[in-house]
């Protein structure tokens, strides 16, 4: 059996990439609005939960966890993890083209390396075949 992915499963991997990176970005944006949280004023964290950006970030990170677990149920960890790393590239590109931040040559090199890394596993099988997989159930 050849373990290639259906278009629907590629969509799940896309959700893994996008929800993690966009969720982190929303949380970061929300927390800059809330302000610094210190150990002596942990109540600020509850105020943060009323911020729409923080709420959006949490919802997206819950979506990330659900899609990550779904992906792990039909693909190897060493196949899924590079996909999650692609989220770093999404964040860098969002910061460049949406927030108009400067991206150094080092960062462009990092982006290219991660894209290559994801490309290596994307072309291979998604799941290792275990001859006695049923024994482990």
């Amino acid at each position, binding site marked *: 059996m050849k373990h290639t992915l259906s278009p629907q499963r590629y969509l799940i991997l896309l959700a893994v990439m996008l929800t993690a990176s966009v969720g982190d970005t929303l949380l970061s944006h929300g927390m800059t609005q809330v302000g610094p949280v*210190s150990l002596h004023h942990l109540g600020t964290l509850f105020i943060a939960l009323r911020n729409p950006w923080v709420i959006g970030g949490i919802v997206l990170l819950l979506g990330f966890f659900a899609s990550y*677990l*779904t992906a*792990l*149920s*039909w693909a*190897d*960890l*060493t*196949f*899924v*993890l*590079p996909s999650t*790393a692609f989220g*770093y590239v999404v964040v*860098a590109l969002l910061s460049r083209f949406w927030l108009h931040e400067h991206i*150094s040559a*080092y*960062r462009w*090199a*990092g*982006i*290219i*390396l*991660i894209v*290559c*890394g*994801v490309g*290596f*596993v994307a*072309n*291979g*099988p998604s799941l*290792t075949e*275990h001859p006695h997989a049923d024994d*482990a*159930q």
Partner: protein
Amino acid sequence: MTPVTPHAGTFETWATILTVALTAIAGDVLTAGAMRRIGDLDDIRAHSGILGAIKAVIGSKMFLLGVLSMALSFFSLLFTLSKVDVSLAAPASASLTFIGNAAAAKIFLHENVDRRRWLAALFVCAGVILLSK
């Protein structure tokens, strides 16, 4: 309040970073192992609905241990960030986690980590380090 510059000795720096990476690896491997045992979530959802899928996942002790490890990793990262610069702690722990996961997946999950997957882990690891520059 004046911000405090993080400071830690070399041993403490790498011990805390290693703790973050090891707990993250444990979390990833335990979670992946649990999902492998539970089976294809798409099939479970088709037969038992979304609630059945959630019940299957939450009922797995291995999954709960994995989540506990992930929580430990998160809190050890917070602890590390209070002592080590984020520009070192974040990429170092992320890179170690990528390499460690490849090794742990081969040893514990018996995944076929061939040359292509090792290269992917190394490229992603180097890419994460460069992104933090």
